[in-house]
């Protein structure tokens, strides 16, 4: 089911079956909860991913921690109901800079791209790559599209993109190679909040199309994800 191994001199990596699968991710998150509730004093922080979990330790040797956590049963740890977060996206071509390119590659009309992209409930797996960047699962295979041959040096905060088999939102201005199909006016990573994002792994994401006027209105309000969904 899972296998622990030492990861340097201060961490343990727990590895699950080698594939991206919601059920495996359920187990990853269940293990994170179990470890947090039972071994809190030894844990500096836990970093989950698709099918693995890194535990950064304090005051304990990795081998000892592995021995102590041996035989944890994950049953019944999955009681929490995931939240669904709505993220408004303006797919106007003035913001969706690569809609035409994606359309040419996928052989879908722009309206079909928008429909396919916004009709899916995406699973939030974990943050990585950039502060607040969400790894999402569930992009329709019809929308898979290779990354741009040369990355842009500046992509605006909130840009929604497709890169290979993944879709996601740039949480801050940054360089990037994904095809940009729209933009959200929300702040997804809010440093002024106690926890910069309210999303928990396993939560669901729904992109809801908005027009340019709504984009401008929401943009002026500078809402974060929690406030918009309140």
């Amino acid at each position: 089911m899972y296998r622990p191994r030492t990861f340097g001199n201060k961490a343990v990596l727990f590895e699950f079956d080698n594939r991206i699968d919601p059920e495996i991710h359920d187990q990853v998150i269940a293990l994170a909860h179990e470890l947090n509730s039972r071994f809190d004093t030894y844990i500096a922080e836990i970093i989950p991913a698709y099918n693995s979990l890194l535990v950064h330790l304090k005051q304990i040797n990795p081998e000892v921690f592995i021995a102590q956590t041996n035989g944890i049963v994950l049953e019944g740890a999955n009681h929490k109901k995931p939240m669904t977060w709505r993220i408004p996206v303006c797919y106007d071509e003035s913001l969706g800079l690569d809609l035409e390119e994606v359309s040419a590659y996928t052989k879908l009309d722009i309206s079909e791209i928008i429909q396919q992209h916004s009709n899916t409930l995406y699973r939030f797996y974990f943050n990585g790559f950039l502060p607040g960047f969400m790894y999402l699962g569930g992009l329709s295979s019809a929308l898979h599209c290779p990354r741009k041959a040369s990355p842009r040096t500046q992509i605006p905060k909130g840009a929604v993109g497709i890169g290979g088999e993944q879709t996601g939102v740039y949480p801050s201005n940054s360089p990037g190679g994904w095809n940009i199909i729209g933009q959200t006016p929300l702040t997804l990573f809010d440093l002024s909040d106690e926890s910069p994002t309210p999303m928990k792994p396993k939560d669901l994401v729904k992109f809801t199309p908005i027009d340019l006027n709504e984009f401008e209105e929401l943009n002026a309000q500078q809402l974060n994800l929690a406030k918009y969904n309140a």
Partner: protein
Amino acid sequence: MLKILDPGIYTSVQDQGRFGYRKYGVPVSGAMDQDAYILANKLVGTPLNEAVIEFAFVGPKIEFLEDCQIVLTGATFNTFLDDKELSIHIPIAVTQGQVLEIKNAREGCYGYLGIAGKWNSQFVMGSKSQYSNITSSPRLQKNDIVKIVPSNGPINRYDIQKEPPKTEIEVVKGPEFDQVKGEKKFIFNAEFSISKNLSRMGIKLDSSIQLSAKEIITSPVMPGVIQLTPGGEFIALMRDAQTTGGYARVLILPDKSINHLSQLKPGSKFTFKLA
């Protein structure tokens, strides 16, 4: 308080790093050479987790806006206080209006300026370490003011032996070590060198060995992880490393080794030794 007259190549406020936020994708950051950073605070009698100024290759020019006690640690830089050359590891008192000019590094890469007192630099998520999109600026810029309330703590003088840069770097095996394609034992026989492609985020290593590894399903990484790409490149992740990655994690540098590797200049040759 002090003022940055010239920021040099890459100068930033750093401390022990930012822990507890990696699940949000926020890197650890912190001083590249943690031993040298802690030593700086020790020498000026400041709490060991207080911030310092880190500089690389060519350091900053700094004007002190009030009297304070300072010390230099880490790499050896050609350093002048007004016209007087300064030595490393010796705390000294500076007076308002004096200018510290940290020129090029003679040995090593990262140097530290410790200052006795309370640093009122921007504090985000438990750390004063500067990082892009976390603090308002990723590093110190010309004319920036660094706010420090000076204290006159006990100055500590130790007889510190400056160690030469390491030519042997201790590592342990990473989770994908066994998946390396090619003669794995070459990793411990071959000569590696530091390439010019380096930053606080990572260092690309040059070597003549022909090994590679398949990509993995994106999984956590941390400072000290050495990745091997399908194209055969070795990349040592350093303090500003991303929190997850898709390359095979073939080796891991224990904390001390991260400090050692960070001080090797581009072109420096070294070997890996299994700890």
